Structures are given as structure tokens and as C-alpha cells.
């Protein structure tokens, strides 16, 4: 059984989680160029590697971010969005 760790509820079977897509910081819509904005809206990066992803623990509706190596399908860490700057990311 695959186990994913929710930052609030702890380790749980993967059947309790819903995938929410890759985490992608939104550029400032007023300052971004048309090209940068179109890239954000339309393009996705499907290449394998270390990804930050949105996941939701369904029973508690806790949305959080998991850092996952999509080559090995291994989750390295998971944390709440509020902690994203502490984890080295941009909101």
C-alpha cells in the first residue's frame, strides 16, 4: 500500500488523497509580459524529475504540497502552502 503523509493528519493510504496538479507560482498578471502569462496559462511541464505537486487529503480537505520525484515515484517531503517560503519556494 502506498502511503502519503498529510502535514496535518499524518501518514495515510494513498486512496485517501486526490492529486491537484503541479504547483506553479503565478506571475503578477499586471507586470508579466504576454509571453510569460500565456506560458503560465497554457503550458505544462510533463518532463520527469523532482516536482512540487498539490495534493488533498480528502477526509479532512487539507490541501498541501508534496515534493515528489516523478522518476522514482517517491515523495521526499510534504508541507502546507503557508510554509512554502520556509521550504524554499515562491508563492
Amino acid at each position, binding site marked *: 500500500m502506498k502511503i502519503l503523509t498529510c502535514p496535518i493528519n499524518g501518514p495515510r493510504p494513498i486512496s485517501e488523497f486526490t492529486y491537484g496538479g503541479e504547483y506553479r507560482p503565478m506571475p503578477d498578471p499586471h507586470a508579466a509580459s504576454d509571453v510569460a502569462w500565456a506560458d503560465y496559462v497554457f503550458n505544462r511541464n510533463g518532463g520527469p524529475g523532482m516536482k512540487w505537486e498539490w495534493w488533498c487529503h480528502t*477526509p479532512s480537505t487539507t490541501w498541501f504540497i508534496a515534493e515528489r520525484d516523478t522518476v522514482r515515484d517517491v515523495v521526499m517531503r510534504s508541507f502546507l502552502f503557508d510554509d512554502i517560503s520556509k521550504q524554499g519556494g515562491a508563492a
Partner: protein
Amino acid sequence: MNALRKSPLHDAIAALQPEWGMHNGMPAALQFDQGDSQRMAALGIADVSCLWRCGLKGPRSMAWLTEQGVAVPAVNSWTPLANGGLIARLGNSEFLLEDSPGGSTAQRMQSLLADRPHGVYPVLRQDAALLLTGAGLHPLLRQTCSFNFMTLDTAVRPVVLTTMVGVVVIVLPQQMPDGMHYRIWCDGTYGEYLWRTLLDIARELDGGVTGLNHLILEGK
């Protein structure tokens, strides 16, 4: 019976023809037959949806509860209320309060929420609420749920949000004088499915339905 409030499990329970009583304006099954206490010891399942519940969430929910004199438990844990009942913390800022038969805290909080306090939002709680007892508890939990309840330390009064036979549930273990009681809440629309599934398993383990006479209404 012409009650305004009915348990989400009412129809399934009515088919078993229990002795009915009224609690909080809702018909409640008091006793099924003389075997209630025997089933309770093996693996008893009781519908306690008639207990008064109140839900709230929001950024100021913790501060507001403290202002009302309600002790706030840590995340994913619960604590007894001063005059009976319990308060469970379901996340950083979401709470479930439930009154015991003699308590009134949840009812009082619900009436205060009608004033729409800033940063606190009421959560409608029309759950199916179950109470499980008896020696067969853990075999039943192992068959229905992927969460390992044996790892829990009941001394810290944990609350578990998980899924049981595919239904999102809140599970709360309580150490009582007569052994462990497990409280389960789920969305009322899934209640009858969960009830029937758990009852089928309980019957295989020599358990079954239990009325409230042998449980909470005696003040246990």
C-alpha cells in the same frame, strides 16, 4: 412517528422494530430486545445521531471558543466538555462539538453562532453518528479501514479523519469504564450504507444493533 427531526439511519433502524424514545426532538432506538447488552459486549453498533451537534470553522474560531469559555484541544484531538459531551478539533481551525444527553454546550454555541461572530462560520452538521463497542471492534476496523487504529495512543485523545469502506469518516476512540468506545461520524447521505455494511460485519462477529438504554442514556 411524526417527528420533525429524523436520524439519517431512521428507516434502516425502523425495520428492526426497536422500542423508541424521543431525544432532542428526534426518535431514538432505546432497546431492540433482551440481547442488547450481550451484543454490546461482542460488537455493538448504536445510532447516536440524536445527540446535539454544532460545527464551526474560520480563522477566529479558536479565539471565539476560548472567549466562550470552551477549552480548545490540540489539532486532531478531542477533549470532554465541562458539562458533558465533547469538542473535537478537525484541523487548524475547524471544530465539532457534541452534547451528551445532559449537556448543552453545543446547543449554546449554535445559538451564539446565529449572531455571525467575525471570522467564525457555522458548519451544518447533519451527520450519521454511530457508537461502536465491544471485543470485536478491532477486527471490524481492520476489515473496513486502511488506518491502523492499534497504533493510536488513546491517552492523548486522538481524532482520526479517514475513510471507512470508501466513506469519509471522523473516528474518535474513547476509553470508557466498560472498555473502548469508538465514535464515528459521516455524511448523513452515506449513513445507511455505512450502517448496513458495519452491521453485516458485526453480525458475523456475534454482535449487532444496540439501543441507547445500555449506552449513553444511562450516563455511561
